[in-house]
């Protein structure tokens, strides 16, 4: 490729970096500025004083938003829901995936096919009965109500099963000869060997639950059970254009996910193509 088109490609790529990333920097920077400054001047890359140009940072917006809604509590709620739902998903989905991949039992293929077919059904078809069932199980307006109805996923079972099928069966046969039980094989052989797919499934389940809005919206009514997206959504519908609050709340919501993403990026990018191109 000649030099000019190479330069052109780099320019485009860098321009898109600005488009994709700079709004987040504006947001974080704005959340640290004085509200008066924020409303009289537009976006700025760094939280500087408009007159002197020096850095001037305040945490007042965060204090104010935490006085309006219990953001600390919401943070812990989100963390609890996302972590517990992820652990449940990893354990039970892998358990089932292993059986579908390796154990022969009657109607196996039929059950699996039937479950896969259910993936076509949009969430909104089951949303209303799900509220009703969760209510009847005594989990309405509770954190467990956010966890249990999403504690497993047929789609994840499918992904993990595909991976387990690819594991050489000799490893399990060796373990059987050593006197390992079925569950022993699952726990000591299959789970360690499935780490790559479990990392992908785990991170996506965490992300889904951390960011989920619709389900908390229909299930949760009391403030001390809010998750971060739900609280932020309520803030948006109620206090309209108080951007100094919205941006502080959005920053609190976004930062943990971005940190996790930067640590686990490899798995996230792999996971995106997993279901799509191979599926």
């Amino acid at each position, binding site marked *: 490729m000649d030099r000019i088109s190479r330069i052109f490609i780099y320019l485009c790529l860098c321009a898109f970096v600005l488009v994709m990333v700079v709004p987040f920097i*504006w947001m974080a920077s704005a959340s640290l500025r004085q509200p008066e400054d924020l409303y009289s001047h537009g976006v700025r890359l760094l939280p500087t004083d408009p007159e002197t140009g020096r850095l001037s940072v305040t945490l007042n917006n965060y204090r104010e938003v935490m006085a309006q809604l219990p953001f600390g509590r919401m943070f812990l709620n989100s963390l609890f829901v996302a972590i517990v739902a992820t652990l449940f998903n990893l354990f039970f989905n892998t*358990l089932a995936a292993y059986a579908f991949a390796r154990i022969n039992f009657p109607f196996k293929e039929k059950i699996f096919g039937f479950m896969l077919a259910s993936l076509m059904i949009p969430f*909104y078809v089951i949303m*209303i009965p799900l509220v009703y069932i969760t209510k009847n199980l005594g989990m309405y307006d509770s954190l467990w109500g956010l966890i249990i109805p999403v504690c497993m996923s047929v789609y994840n079972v499918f992904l993990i099963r595909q991976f387990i099928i690819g594991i050489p069966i000799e490893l399990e046969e060796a373990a059987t000869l050593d006197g390992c039980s079925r569950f022993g094989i699952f726990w000591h052989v299959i789970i360690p060997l499935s780490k790559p797919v479990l990392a992908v499934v785990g991170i996506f389940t965490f992300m889904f639950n951390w960011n989920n*809005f*619709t389900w908390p*919206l229909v299930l949760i009514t009391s403030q001390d059970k809010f998750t971060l997206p739900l609280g932020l959504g309520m803030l948006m519908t109620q206090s309209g254009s108080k951007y100094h609050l*919205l941006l502080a709340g*959005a920053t609190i919501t976004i930062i943990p996910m971005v940190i996790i*993403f930067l640590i686990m990026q490899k798995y996230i990018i792999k996971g995106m193509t997993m279901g799509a191109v191979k599926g």
Partner: protein
Amino acid sequence: MKFASLLRQKKFREGLAGYLFVLPLLLYFAIFVLIPILISFYYSFTDWTMRSTPHFVSFRNYAELLFNKQKQPYFWPSLLVTVKYIILRVPVGLALSLFLALLLNSRIRGENFFKLCYFIPMITSVIAIAALWKWLYDPVTGFINQSLALAQMTQHNWLNEVGTALPAIAAMSVWQGAGYGMIIFLAGLKGIPEELYEAARIDGANAWQQFWNITLPLLRPVTFFLLVTSIIGSFQVFDQIYVLTSGLGSPEHSTFVYILNLFNQAFRYYRMGLACAMSYILFVIILVITWIQFKFVPQSYD
């Protein structure tokens, strides 16, 4: 005794083990997937409100939605708004994703860094994104209008004008979703054998001809996959519109999409039966879209 002798048979033990392993999933599936699907279907033929005992009303919910313009003035308009949203969101989104993937596929250094950057909007909460963009769209202090003022171009009250609200929300979603399509296209591009391009170059094809005659046709399965999944996804757009319009689909119902209507029927007016009927109409629409994909699109993704 009989059970004990059964237990000694290897085949029976294997089957039992299998069922024990899938038991949690089976229970979960029955309670949180299968029963809700059936309940939803049954209640779509009732006047259920979640508090009252449901009465069977046969097809009245469906008939009201589809034909009664007095009682359901927004059913058809909300479908139209949703289709408009799809038209605004999907083609631009696909084109942008493809463009980014092509840029990244030209053997440049720092590919991972760029990927990382384009991905950040993708992994963040759509509510936080909506909060951020609400500020950018603000008529007075927002970045977009301030830039337009600098360039001496017409400014808009983006989220509050009938003509601009839906495109503004679609633009936000395009921005957020570009990274996903990019990564799928990139996987497709990496699967195209280099020899094809070499052969084309020997035949004297220029870059544009190579793109048009090799890249695009070979990307067809990936493109259709993305097309169908993003149409289905956009059909169910809800979160960002709910928080940006306080659940109203304002201004003047110009952003009143299908799911917002469903949500309001269920949780504002407590017409659960009617909302269930709406959800099944949605399901049929999605089935048709999926059927079209299976019918007309090559299935091999390798």
